[in-house]
């Protein structure tokens, strides 16, 4: 995968208002492949925990017969975590604040993932 395409994908997501950062994470390893994060975000911690969360949720969906995972939206008191599977065993992760438009962020994430294919 060409690094320039990863940067373009992250750039697309981080341009959405309220997005504090985006990362491409190796799903199996939980390691950061590429990132564009605001200062103060612990990228390695988010990557490891988000990959673990996606794996466990994926298993739960599988067990429930719901098919493969498409998108995860986790809302917390001060922000949101958005996850979307990406090609080559990666996971696109976006961190937003409370005011971010999740619908728009999801659309941009989808197009970013398509750009990586």
């Amino acid at each position, binding site marked *: 995968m060409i690094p320039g395409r990863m940067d373009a994908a992250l750039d697309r997501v981080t341009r959405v208002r309220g997005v504090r950062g985006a990362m491409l994470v190796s799903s*199996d390893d*939980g390691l950061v492949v590429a990132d564009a994060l605001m200062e103060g975000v612990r990228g390695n911690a988010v*990557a490891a925990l988000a990959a673990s969360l996606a794996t466990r949720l994926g298993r739960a969906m599988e067990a429930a017969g719901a098919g493969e995972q498409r998108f995860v939206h986790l809302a917390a008191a001060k922000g949101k975590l958005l996850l979307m599977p990406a090609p080559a065993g990666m996971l696109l992760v976006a961190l937003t604040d409370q005011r971010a438009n999740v619908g728009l962020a999801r659309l941009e994430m989808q197009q970013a993932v398509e750009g990586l294919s």
Partner: protein
Amino acid sequence: MKARVVEPWLVEPVERFVRETGARLTLIMTPAGQVLAQYGFTRAVEVMAAAALGAGIAASTGEIVRMLDEPAFRALNHQSPTHGIFLGHFDSPRGGLLALVVYGADTSIGLVQLFFEDLVADLAAAAPPPPTRGPVLAADFERDLNESLATLFR
């Protein structure tokens, strides 16, 4: 299964690390291979072998690092389809220590690395001041080693 330790201050940090990462085996030891804590091993001979091999890997990698004029050895990771092995060196109030961690496919190197950072901080916070020691004699070393192994498998 509980962590077996030579000194009680090691229990909580090691058990937290195992709980958070889901590691199958964990060994905390000195760079010389003297074991301070273990989790998951059932036989003393396995602990001795793993400690000797881990210390040997750290020593030989450290020598390569030295030849390359790089800073000291910090960590190594081996990944196979079913298991991963992480070997990390860290500084503690008791001097340099090594952590050898074997983990399965239900966790990841990202999680192990993340909680390894927490383990190092937890051990630094929990460690009592180092005891004053006299000169190390061969007879004392063998006695200490046997006492440590007896404690770890009591």
